[in-house]
């Protein structure tokens, strides 16, 4: 890992380093130690916030000589970057910002609505989990014989816009589109359970209606729990749960009929 840090410090001597490291800090909160050590390294750089042209003047001087020399020492070999640094590059998932541990944590939070949620889990906007759950919902609907991918995505998008407007009006601190989309997407998971049960038996009847109502309650309870803990709106959980219930009720209508 120290070799990796050294590689970054030496090779990227431009703004790109700082931005890359800042993004890294925002993406995974669990790697805080790594981020802090990286940040201290950037502060040591004299031209940390300098414009790109001046940095570009420095960087050719530092490595151009090494590129022209065919025989290189093993220490500087790593500074060639992409030709030989395939092992040194960050893994693809880390670059894309997909952190399976966090996705799993958030999924568990959704699946257990009675457990109090941590307000900081929604600080990072993660849309991978929601996309997977929307696709899973579409796929399970497909298995039940309904091709409704467009409806799922359309209703998700419009629902996110509406919830974003409502939450911005109701909360003291604002909320971003990504955060709302992320929360609503994660809380769609119980709906996937409902649509997969629709494959096995028809939901148009009393047991189907009861199950649909239960799943709607589960989804909206999870979503409102996460929203109230993230936006510090304790007394208004029911007021947020109701619009979420209406939105998930639409998904349930899509699944049942």
């Amino acid at each position, binding site marked *: 890992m120290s070799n990796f840090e050294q590689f970054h410090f030496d090779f990227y001597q431009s703004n790109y380093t700082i931005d890359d490291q800042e993004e890294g800090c925002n993406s995974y909160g669990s790697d805080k130690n790594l981020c802090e050590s990286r940040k201290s390294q950037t502060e040591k750089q004299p031209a940390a916030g300098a414009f790109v042209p001046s940095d570009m003047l420095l960087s050719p001087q530092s490595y151009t000589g090494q590129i022209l020399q065919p025989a290189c020492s093993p220490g500087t070999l790593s500074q060639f970057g992409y030709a030989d640094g395939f092992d040194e590059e960050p893994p693809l998932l880390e670059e894309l910002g997909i952190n399976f541990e966090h996705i799993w944590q958030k999924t568990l939070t959704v699946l257990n609505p009675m457990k109090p949620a941590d307000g900081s889990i929604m600080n990072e906007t993660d849309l991978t989990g929601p996309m997977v759950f929307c696709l899973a919902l579409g796929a399970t609907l497909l298995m039940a014989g309904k091709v409704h991918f467009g409806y799922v995505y359309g209703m998700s998008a419009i629902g996110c816009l509406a919830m974003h407007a409502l939450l911005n*009006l*109701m909360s003291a601190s604002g909320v971003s589109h990504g955060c709302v989309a992320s929360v609503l997407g994660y809380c769609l998971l119980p709906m996937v359970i409902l649509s997969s049960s629709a494959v096995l038996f028809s939901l148009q009847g009393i047991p189907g209606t009861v199950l649909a109502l239960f799943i709607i309650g589960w989804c909206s309870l999870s979503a409102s729990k996460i929203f109230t803990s993230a936006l510090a709106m304790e007394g208004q959980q029911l007021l947020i749960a109701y619009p979420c219930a209406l939105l998930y009720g639409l998904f349930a209508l899509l699944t049942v009929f």
Partner: protein
Amino acid sequence: EEDGEFLGMKGLRGQLGRQVADQMWQVGKRQASRAFSLYANIDILRPYFDVEPVQVRARLLESMIPVKMINFPQKIAGELYGPLMLVFTLVAILLHGMKTSDTIIREGTLMGTAIGTCFGYWLGVSSFMYFLAYLCNAQITMVQMLSLLGYGLFGHCITLFVTYNIHFHSLFYIFWLVVGGLSTLRMVAVLVSRTVGHTQRLILCGTLAALHMLFLLYLHFAYHKVVEGILDTLEGPNMPPFQRVARDIPVVSNAVLNTTAKAIALT
């Protein structure tokens, strides 16, 4: 001349034209963004969404209880969260009713129709009533009108929720009169308390009562057509039993027989 000579300098007309167009675009963009930030500022609506669940529940129950005090202006909660949620609930109930009765909307979608109907009623009738209130010199603001009419939809939601699932015409009429009537009376009492003069009170309250009750009637009959078919078969004892009568149209059957014979003879 053809090659754009203006004041002796070639190409200046084109350049001047471009500069003028550029300037006009910049000014227009600046004005549009200023107007947008002024009117589309969602923060204007922020105070109307500051409510507690207890308050919403109390206002929902109060919307069904007419208050007889008409000599002093009654208090109206200027709040938009409850009415907005009630409109969305009405949309959901309409959608559910349309889905269970397999209603087919030919030009449009189910969702679009439901949203258009409910929001159109809420916003349209509120604006119309506000205009009438302005003409009749009533003391009511637009937000108060929206709030009053929105909470009045609570009766509609209850009625439709019950009667879309339990299909009896007489039950619907009872609900229409009792529940619809109570919420209408509540709104009428509020308006009467805020208007001076008999003619004005009559105009305002008559219009509101008519629109409110007719809307409920429309929602029931327009979006749940299957109800009619089911009820006709359910009213068994009063109707004569279905009789099978042989279709006997001799003229037509002879003509068909002759043409068929001719057709077979030809082949």
